[in-house]
């Protein structure tokens, strides 16, 4: 019997929260946006700046500043850090930052497009493994489709080379897709390909509900992002690809996490934090509203977690439209409405975002907890709707029947 089996030592697989018997660390996880710059110029991106943006580069946190942030995170009990961007590998000091994080005893998760992975970097990842699977976004299955998304004529081959390097070094990674006009018809092919990726244990995730620019910096790009968004019916059609059990899964999710938020804005904040490319603490990487950002240059991560974060968590919605709709909506757990998206779309923390509202309502109709035309915030018995779906549907919006029917079980979709 091994010591682990006998109970002296215990393995802690990734993501397990039961490690803590008593108090939890002040900071459990930290996301660091190492740069907003990217080697790609993806159509749908809410962050990217050009790789050669001199002003952005000049303003970015220095190597020493990032190392200090990592050291303080570790001192606060942080177990894992996620490096994201932009493209984090674009920083010349990426290796130094990465190795520092690992030597502090942090697990590292890297969000990357893989195009900048060099043989040397792959060797570093082999010798000093990140401990968390790298997450690689794949923008298309051909150079044509991929590069029409990335706007970078060399990106497809470079990304494939990067993935091959990771494979050759046995560095675990998962791949994620993106649903855009050039790639929408490649989903089956992409999914077949992902089944050959050793690190994949299930279906790939996709980016398909695109956020507007989180810095509210480019209305032209926002216009393009809006034009790329799936309409609600198309989104539901794609979601139905996940199988006939998906509606029941979603209902279970809504039942578990449902409930009207009232004036509470931040139901999502926990013991994690984020730092942007310029050394500012954010409660969420998407949320750049000045009232929710804290400059670490004049403070500390500890103060951010202990003093600033609780103040943000206590913020309340005041916009009557939000209180009338989102505050009373039992689809809150299904809807992507949040202060960050309200900020990106409207410049406030509490304005309903019609696009995400429409998506949530389409999903709710699909899973049978709303009738067509109903508004979720006008439903007083949301819990009952979840427990006893009212609509009969089969495989997506096109299978909707005309009448209402009570359903006693998930597989009894029979006409009355």
């Amino acid at each position, binding site marked *: 019997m091994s*010591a682990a089996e*006998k109970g002296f030592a215990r*393995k802690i697989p990734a993501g397990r929260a039961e490690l803590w018997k008593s108090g939890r660390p002040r900071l459990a996880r930290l996301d660091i946006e190492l740069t907003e710059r990217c080697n790609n110029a993806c159509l749908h991106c809410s962050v990217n700046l050009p790789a050669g943006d001199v002003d952005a580069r000049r303003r970015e946190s220095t190597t020493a500043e990032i190392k200090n942030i990592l050291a303080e995170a570790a001192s606060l009990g942080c177990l894992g850090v996620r490096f994201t961007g932009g493209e984090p590998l674009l920083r010349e000091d990426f290796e130094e930052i990465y190795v520092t994080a690992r030597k502090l*005893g942090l697990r590292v998760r890297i969000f990357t497009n893989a195009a900048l992975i060099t043989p040397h970097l792959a060797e570093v990842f082999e010798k000093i493994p990140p401990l968390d699977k790298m997450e690689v976004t794949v923008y298309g299955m051909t150079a044509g489709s991929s590069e029409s998304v990335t706007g970078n004529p060399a990106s497809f081959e470079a990304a494939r080379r990067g993935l091959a390097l990771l494979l050759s070094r046995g560095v675990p990674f998962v791949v994620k897709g993106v649903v855009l006009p050039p790639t929408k018809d490649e989903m089956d092919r992409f999914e077949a390909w992902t089944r050959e990726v050793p690190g994949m244990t299930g279906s790939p995730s996709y980016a398909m509900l695109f956020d507007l620019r989180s810095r509210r910096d480019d209305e032209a790009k926002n216009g393009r992002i809006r034009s790329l968004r799936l309409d609600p019916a198309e989104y539901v059609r794609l979601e139905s690809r996940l199988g006939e059990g998906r509606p029941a899964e979603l209902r279970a999710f809504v039942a578990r996490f449902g409930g009207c938020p009232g004036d509470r804005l931040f139901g999502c904040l926990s013991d994690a934090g984020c730092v942007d490319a310029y050394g500012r603490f954010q409660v969420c990487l998407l949320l750049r509203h000045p009232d929710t950002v804290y400059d670490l240059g004049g403070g500390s991560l500890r103060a951010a977690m202990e003093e600033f974060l609780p103040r943000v968590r206590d913020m309340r919605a005041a916009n009557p439209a939000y209180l009338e709709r989102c505050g009373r909506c039992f689809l809150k757990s299904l809807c992507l409405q949040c202060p960050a998206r309200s900020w990106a779309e409207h410049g406030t923390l509490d304005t309903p975002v019609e696009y995400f509202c429409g998506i949530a309502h389409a999903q709710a109709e699909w899973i049978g907890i709303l009738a067509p035309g109903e508004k979720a915030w006008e439903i007083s018995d949301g819990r009952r709707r979840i427990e006893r779906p009212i609509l009969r549907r089969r495989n997506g919006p096109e299978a909707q029947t005309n009448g209402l029917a009570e359903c006693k079980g998930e597989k009894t979709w029979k006409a009355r």
Partner: protein
Amino acid sequence: MESAISLDAAYGPSEDVVVREIEGELIIVPLASGMGDLEDELFTLNETGRAVWARLDGRKPLRAIVGELAGEFEAPEGAIEQDVMGLLEELVRRKMILRKG
């Protein structure tokens, strides 16, 4: 199978692990590859494991550590020795500690 762990040898933490104490838990984080399974996990030690780990300084023979533990814990020395050997086998197998002398 005979244990590869010697009571007369001294063992100490490898430089390929980072040991962290967080909220009262001692957590061993692999730095180099090959210490965990597939994705390398973190490890934590219980009270007994911590008592052993704290004494693994690379100089003190394991036999002396067993003796110290027998004086501290209410358990037969033979049982303690067996438990220490078991833990050491696991930690050595995972390259978290090394024979230092």
